[in-house]
């Protein structure tokens, strides 16, 4: 099998419109949460979210940098975020200029968990109030999940695999894992892989609140609402944004002198076969995914330095932790484990990809991002380094990134430093 490395990074998050701003704020312990501004949340059970900020904000995102005006008008926000993050990653990798032959060997695997829910909501109201003749001709292709991949490949002329994963909150991790396999299996030499999401709209917030998944009791204290592993946690905070990485075949990356951030060495996938929204109470599916990833990477429990947890700030946090303990050992064998959802909320289909970028930066800089708001750790967390409140310096050579989703879908990625 061919080796696969990461050579480019792109982020649009509630903490920044690019990689370095997002990372700097994450390490500084900033929170991306606040009252919802995208619409009037009056009457909603949850009135807070981690929104991507506008371009006038110091951490803001400027869509005009990489996304055509016409495209911006026609597509849902998740597609705009995805196109921009992909562009950032390509620029970072130094791959904006490629030959036609290289473009034929370059593909995309950028998915979303839900896709264009805001546009579906708007056009549905439009249909009922004004009739079918007023529905936008761009409605369908401006909302489809695979249209981040589609738009990116059209923009840059890539003719390799055109793929988009849809596995709820595991999407970002599956996207990267699947794309790495496409390179390993010689289907492509370069893949843009990741996930994007934006469902900070009335229907999205109401739907997750009705499913009893969202935090609804910290509306007056938005930055304290996402508190993974804390006794007072009470549901996740909706996030939005995108994460995309450039994956490249190792020999090719080395030959062109690319910056090699990490190697994707392990990927595990499993299903819970239990319930549509609740995880298996013993975390059996999560455990299977982690064990498979470790086996693929050829690593033992003591080799993992950092676990970026799924850790959504729901009751499921301790189920995941119990599974991690069974795999890595009761003290995690020296690994630190944190949930960056404490700062950026839950990006659903974008989560796994954004967190993969954070994992890579953790290895690059030797700094582990904190779990914010962890004041009263829940039972079962004793003796485990959950990196409460403040970032921590430590060398990190191997990371495990977990993502789990509705439908009982689990994905674990392992990435390692390359010497």
């Amino acid at each position, binding site marked *: 099998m061919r080796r696969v490395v990461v050579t480019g990074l792109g982020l649009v998050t509630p903490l920044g419109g690019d990689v370095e701003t997002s990372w700097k704020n994450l390490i500084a312990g900033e929170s991306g949460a606040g009252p919802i501004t995208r619409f009037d949340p009056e009457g909603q059970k949850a009135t807070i979210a981690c929104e991507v900020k506008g371009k006038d904000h110091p951490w803001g995102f400027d869509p005009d940098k990489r996304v055509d*005006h016409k495209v911006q008008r026609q597509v849902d926000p998740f597609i705009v975020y995805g196109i921009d993050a992909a562009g950032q990653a390509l620029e970072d990798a130094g791959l904006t200029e490629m030959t036609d032959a290289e473009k034929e060997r370059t593909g995309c695997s950028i998915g979303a968990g839900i896709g264009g829910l805001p546009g579906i909501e708007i056009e549905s109201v439009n249909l009922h109030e004004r009739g079918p003749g007023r529905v936008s001709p*761009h409605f369908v292709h401006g909302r489809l999940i695979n249209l981040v991949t589609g738009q990116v490949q059209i923009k840059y002329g890539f003719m390799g695999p055109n793929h988009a994963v849809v596995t709820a909150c595991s999407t970002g991790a599956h996207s990267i894992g699947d794309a790495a396999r496409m390179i390993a299996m010689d289907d492509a030499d370069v893949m843009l892989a990741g996930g994007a999401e934006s469902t900070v709209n009335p229907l999205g917030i109401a739907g997750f609140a009705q499913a009893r998944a969202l935090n609804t009791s910290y509306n007056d204290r938005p930055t304290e609402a996402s508190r993974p592993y804390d006794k007072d946690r009470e549901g996740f905070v909706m996030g939005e944004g995108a994460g995309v990485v450039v994956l490249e075949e190792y020999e090719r990356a080395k030959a062109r002198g690319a910056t090699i951030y990490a190697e994707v060495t392990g990927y595990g996938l499993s299903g819970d076969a239990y319930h549509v929204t609740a995880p298996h109470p013993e975390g059996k599916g999560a455990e299977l995914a982690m064990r498979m990833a470790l086996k693929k990477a050829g690593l033992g429990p003591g080799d993992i330095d950092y676990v970026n947890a799924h850790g959504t700030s729901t009751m499921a946090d301790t189920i995941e932790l119990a599974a991690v303990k069974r795999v890595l050992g009761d003290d995690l064998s020296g690994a630190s484990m944190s949930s960056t959802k404490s700062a950026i909320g839950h990006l659903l289909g974008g989560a796994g990809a954004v967190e993969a970028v954070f994992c890579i930066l953790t290895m690059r800089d030797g700094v582990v991002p904190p779990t914010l708001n962890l004041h009263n750790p829940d039972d079962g967390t004793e003796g485990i380094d959950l990196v409460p409140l403040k970032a921590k310096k430590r060398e990190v050579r191997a990371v495990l990134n977990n993502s789990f989703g509705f439908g009982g879908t689990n994905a674990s990625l392992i990435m390692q430093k390359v010497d």
Partner: protein
Amino acid sequence: MSDTADRVQKIVVEHLGVEGDKVTQEASFIDDLGADSLDIVELVMAFEEEFGVEIPDDAAEKISTVGDATKYIEEHKG
């Protein structure tokens, strides 16, 4: 420029993201302004909305330049 032409130009600039001075009455939506067939469907919907006219499909198919649109609207608006 007539009031109609002025408003047509504004809609085209907003929808297609092109410079205003490129939106001449002679400009072809597809050849000069980078529109595709779906963009024209959307533009026609926007003209209908702005001017309160109905542009049936067979008439919309004959609109290929900015001038065609302006002329049709001037002839049919109430």
